[in-house]
């Protein structure tokens, strides 16, 4: 240990890269494009503030909530819940094999892997309401198109999360299973599945939570449940009824989240 004096000279400033200013210019350009009157949506802060103050009068109509409307909301609310449950079950079941095909660890070959990954990003690129819109157009209004839309949405979310978990599994058990002569399916069943099962259950619960939220929304386009009712009340400007529905949705979402988080903690 020679006592070398610590260098006290200032370290050289790292060379500034052109990337940061370029990014800033790009940011300003996109924002200008998006906010401009001719090319974009014509975003004007002054006008906005004027609108917001006018809107305060409308918001005042939400209060007090018309609680006598509550009984009429119970049935659609339960329908929404049932849709979320069924879609969650079906969606998460389908997501399981999809996820196994979408991980390098378990996919049988590069072609299956690529196709499955591609399909997954297409499924995930479309938001749930677009599915709902298309299915309502194809099947008519009611809970069925809503359930279908949620199934697609769930497969997208759960398969993506699970395939990434599978990518990170411990390879040891896989080698052990192979060494005992297990075929591909047996390896997946006994070496991979037990490792990711808790995560799978957690993701499924998570997807269910999202379903509850999403199923309020897809009702707005005619896919059944409380969203339908919300849309009707909105059309008739019954803001005091609307606030009952909103409060109910809010409470329901919070409850489901609390239960789901508790379950996930116990399981993982």
């Amino acid at each position: 240990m020679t006592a070398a004096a610590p260098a006290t000279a200032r370290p050289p400033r790292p060379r500034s890269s052109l990337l940061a200013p370029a990014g800033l210019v790009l940011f300003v350009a996109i924002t200008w494009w998006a906010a401009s009157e001719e090319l974009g949506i014509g975003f004007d802060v002054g006008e906005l503030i004027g609108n917001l103050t006018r809107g305060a009068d409308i918001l005042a109509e939400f209060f007090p909530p018309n609680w006598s409307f509550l009984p009429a909301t119970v049935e659609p609310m339960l329908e929404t819940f049932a849709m979320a449950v069924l879609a969650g079950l079906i969606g998460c079941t389908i997501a399981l094999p999809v996820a196994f095909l979408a991980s390098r660890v378990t996919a049988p070959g590069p072609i299956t892997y690529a196709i499955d990954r591609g399909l997954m990003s297409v499924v995930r690129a479309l938001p749930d309401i677009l599915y709902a819109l298309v299915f309502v157009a194809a099947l008519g209004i009611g809970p069925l198109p809503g359930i279908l839309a949620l199934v697609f949405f769930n497969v997208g979310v759960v398969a993506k999360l699970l395939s990434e978990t599978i990518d990170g599994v411990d390879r040891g058990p896989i080698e052990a299973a192979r060494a005992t002569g297990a075929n591909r399916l047996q390896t997946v069943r006994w070496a991979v599945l037990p490792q990711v099962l808790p995560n799978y259950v957690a993701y499924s619960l998570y997807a269910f939570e999202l379903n509850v939220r999403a199923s309020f929304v897809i009702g707005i386009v005619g896919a059944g449940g409380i969203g339908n009712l919300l849309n009707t009340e909105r059309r008739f400007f019954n803001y005091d009824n609307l606030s009952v529905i909103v409060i109910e949705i809010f409470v329901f979402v919070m409850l489901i989240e609390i239960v789901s988080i508790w379950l996930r903690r116990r399981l993982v």
Partner: protein
Amino acid sequence: MSERVSTARPVRPSSRLKWLLTGVLFAVVAWAAISVEVEPDRLLELPGSLSTIFYRMFLAPGPDWSTLGGAFDAMMESVQIAWLGTIIGAILSLPLAFLGAKNVTSSFVSNVTRQVLNAIRAIPEILVAVVVFIPMVGLGPYAGTLAIGVHSIGTLGKLSAEAIEGIDPGPVEAARATGGNALQVQRWGVLPQVLPEIVAFWLYRFEINIRASAILGAVGAGGIGEFLVQALNFRRYDRAGMAIIVVIVITILIDLASGWVRRRIIEGGPVRRLTDRDLAMAEADTAIG
């Protein structure tokens, strides 16, 4: 090390909870299946009507390429809504993130802030649009932008607050030791550590918001959703097919571009690396708003 390791099988963990949960699950599913009135004949028609609509959208007559320009413009409006909405959400969420971080404020303040953020997160943006902003500012892209902005605060605030909680306390102490006031400590001790990660969250939120704004049109808040709803109302499946193709292509392209920028920003980031799984979690959290 002469002591022998016990080779007895470990006691099986109690499975009472498991059985209870399984029972509850079965009961709920059975109830759901019975209570949702899905007519069996409609279920049988399902594959037929789905393949018909798919056929009309993408095969014959297939997408109406003459409306490509219109669909593209509508999608660009959705992108603009998402961009401006994300900026609103980013600006408003940053101070809330500092308030919500336990290592910055007291645990009381951070708990209250977190609960507020959770509450914002719980209400889907389309609901915010329908219930609050469309009555306030009327139909059109304005309402969509504001709804997306408000809703984004919830997730952005939560994720950013968690990032702030994960910082190295060293620079904070150093800033304090040199006599920095509360604001200066945050500015020079905390912000540089978390900014790359937070900017990555913003970009990620932008990707999600594109999906969100694509759907807001369905309630009259502008963009590609409106285009699609009109096409479907008039049973113009060829136009709907075009719209769907535009949504998928543009969404994936922007995802790729934004993902590249995110990785550039995070590379060598001072805090922990964001894994794809973190982001996927964040996305799933907010995918439907």
